[in-house]
């Protein structure tokens, strides 16, 4: 499996995702945002961080960079795209995923482990998880409060495009377990072809038992299939 990680000025989880990908036996390349072509890849990752300092709106400026046109082309031809945290924000800014990420409802940066429930395990990203399995992943963001209009929300539900929802450890998706105010506790979504996943929690932080847990591993091993 060949992967590419796009690096923007201010990306800061690029090394973390590269380490996770290598650990999972991906052949990974780092791609600087000023490049105008992409190597052939099965998976493109847009990593977390503060691209362009999160200035203006998080993800907005990275969404205008040259390399993004190539990412869109690759996505249209079926390449798998994973956007984590700031990567998710960039995907919504470019329209590759619909909706947007607003400030957390408490107006504070939040870093802690949260539980999320797997809402659809019949995708290239989640096949190694069980349906409704609860994962414990780390979140770290200022703007993770997912919002979309009601038409799109209906579509997300109808077409099973919600990837993960914030929950408690037994999978209850009550608003009480919503860390940031996201609509319907949404933590991650797919596009309609399900080859693009955007998610706020960081699976790459959960691949090493010594540091955290291994709940993120199956996302990467799903992709390897």
């Amino acid at each position, binding site marked *: 499996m060949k992967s590419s990680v796009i690096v923007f*000025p*201010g990306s*800061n*989880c690029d*090394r*973390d995702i590269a*380490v*996770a990908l290598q650990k999972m036996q991906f052949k990974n390349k780092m791609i600087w945002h*000023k490049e105008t072509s992409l190597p052939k890849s099965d998976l493109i990752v847009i990593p977390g*961080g*503060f691209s*362009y*300092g*999160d*200035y203006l709106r998080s993800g907005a400026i990275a969404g205008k960079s040259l390399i993004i046109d190539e990412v869109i082309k690759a996505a249209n031809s079926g390449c798998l795209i994973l956007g984590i945290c700031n990567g998710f924000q960039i995907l919504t800014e470019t329209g590759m995923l619909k909706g947007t990420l607003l400030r957390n409802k408490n107006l*504070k*940066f*939040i*870093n*802690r482990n949260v539980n999320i429930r797997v809402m659809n395990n019949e995708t290239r990203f989640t096949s190694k998880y069980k349906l409704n399995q609860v994962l414990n992943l*780390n979140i*770290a963001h*200022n703007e993770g409060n997912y919002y979309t209009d009601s038409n799109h929300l209906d579509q997300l539900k109808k077409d099973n495009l919600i990837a993960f929802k914030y929950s408690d450890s037994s999978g209850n998706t009550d608003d009480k377990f919503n860390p940031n105010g996201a609509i319907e506790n949404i933590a991650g979504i797919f596009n309609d072809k399900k080859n693009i996943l955007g998610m706020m929690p*960081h699976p*790459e*932080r959960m691949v*090493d038992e*010594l*540091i*955290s847990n291994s709940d993120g591993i199956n996302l990467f091993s799903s992709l390897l299939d």
Partner: protein
Amino acid sequence: MGINNKIIEKHGLKIEEYKVIKKLLKRDPNLLELGVFSAMWNEHCSYKSSRIHLKKLPTKGDQVIQGPGENAGVIDIGDNDAIIFKIESHNHPSFIEPYQGAATGVGGILRDVFTMGARPIALLNSIHFGSPSHPKTKSLLNGVVSGIGGYGNCIGIPTVAGETKFNDTYNDNILVNAMAVGHAEKNKIFYSKAKGINKSVVYVGSKTGRDGIHGASMASAEFDENSDEKKPTVQVGDPFTEKLLLEACLELMKDDSIIAIQDMGAAGLTSSSVEMASKGSLGIELILDKVPCREENMSPYEMMLSESQERMLIILEDGKEEHAKKIFQKWDLDFVIIGKTTDTKKLTLKYKDEIVGEIPIEALASKAPIYDRKWTKKKIPKSINIKKFKKIGLKEALIKILSSPNHSNKSWITNQYDQMVMCDTAQKSGSDAAIIRIHNKDKAIAVAVDSSANYCKSYPITGGKQIVCENWRNLITVGAKPIAITNCLNFGNPENKEVMGEFAECLEGIKEACKFLNFPVVSGNVSFYNGTNKKNIYPTPVIGGVGLIEKLSQPLSHNFKKNNSLLILIGKTFGHLEQSCYLKENFAVEDGKPPKINFINEKNNGEIVLKLIKENFVLSSHDISSGGLLVALSEMSIGSKLGAKINKPKKLVNLTEYFFGEDQSRYILEIHENSLSDVDKILKKNNIYYENIGITQDNYFEIEGEMKIDINDLFKINNQWYNNY
């Protein structure tokens, strides 16, 4: 413009100092030169009041590569790995504008570490606020915490440990100390000593604006009613640019293009250029027209004194200019050759083809004034009669302490910091020390910061010893061998004899402890003039320590691991309640002596605890500090949601003294029930005093026959305060 007394005073210089300047120059300085002198001669840059005392600190050791004198200290952790670290204060700016003050404090200390070639791997902070009921405290707390987080989170370096304290003494002068820790290859460390003549002096990073002009002299002046007027000097941090600067510098450092490199911190272009020239016994010539400016019509005076953030000065090897320029352009940063090294031993400033200022480097550096300020010894404080306080129940007292601002759980703060980015944080804040794995290796370092202003106020020598020992203990409890410390000395007005005495005696205590424990000081920072209108803060030295875990198999926390394990208490309990948190929280009393430090016990207990941990006998461990035994035990319980059943001590002791006394050199260890005989053997063989104090259990935290609390209640008690504030 002629220079009169008022201008001299405005520059924070004394008339006598001005006379010395004239003598050194053999003429009157012009205004630009006066500005340069004032920046270099103020307390912050010249250490004029502290230097003779700092000299006494032990700074050498087998593992010390670089002690004080460079941007940060460097220690050797084996296999060509070096750790580079330093702590620094940003107290005054943070009081004026808490968000930006704290943020730029973090930015500044990071630059000190990555200028030396290290990739920063952890951030820590020690923050002190006034009383929670003081009208300013809440917004200062909010601003400082979000500023620290705002900078560290954005640049992507985990903030992993720290301390937050409240005390009236900081009502008008908060403390914001930030510490950065980086990792470098031992053979790739960069220093600030210039070498060679006619080498290019390069300016990189952000443009220069009018921010922070005279910031360094502000940090050296007491606040008064007019401090509002000093506001325009506030600097704004740009963590995004710092991230670019970090990556660009590390990229350039891969080969040998750099002769010397120095961040522009306090007193910006002035101190960075003078420092490099002074260390290399050279001169430096700057063409100020070339300085990248953010605003129009900036004068040479403003350029030399601006404290704009995110800038560096580099001296390059011949012929490396194009290569270096490419790297900085890749990262969208300014890169301009603004001068060269010379053999004149002078700082020469040119502007519009004229020499606008010329000062011998030694007049600015080695000939800067040094004062042996008058100081008085602290009298031994009177003991207080504990019996005069009304008796209160153990449970009631414990609840009072655990729910107080100083002892409440700090996750409201730490959840605002990214603690996991870089994926090497094996232990986050919450335990005695954080653990950071060295990337791609089995080994890890432990880091912690500590201060005990109450003890230092009461009796500075003991207080000074105590914080070093407490810091050492905090590293031991997570299984790390303590290696070296950095220190940030926050004190009042040094022109006051009592304050200067507190300084001298705290330092004496720090020195003795460091010597005895072989725990040298490799870097640090002094912040004087903390206080207002002649009211000085408590002496507040902050110690930041680094220890090594040679092989990290499982991070050791202070949370209980399972039920039915044995709890043992290492070290003797005498029941020292003077200066205790028990008296402070229950009776608002802050009197008496601090607890004694016995270095021999300290060292023996610590070394044997470390041995037990290394031999895998220990499931969890915690040192006993503020709040005493009972508070330490409840913290172990709260973190794990496991309870404990503590025996009622058999001897005829006063329970309050036993459970809340703050005697030093003590640890609580959780061990497997079946390892007791092995552990007992090791402890006995080494003459370590210990007691079996109870066992862990589910659901309840209790002292046999005395008190019993549901652990969920205990958790709630400890987790309310911040959320309700």
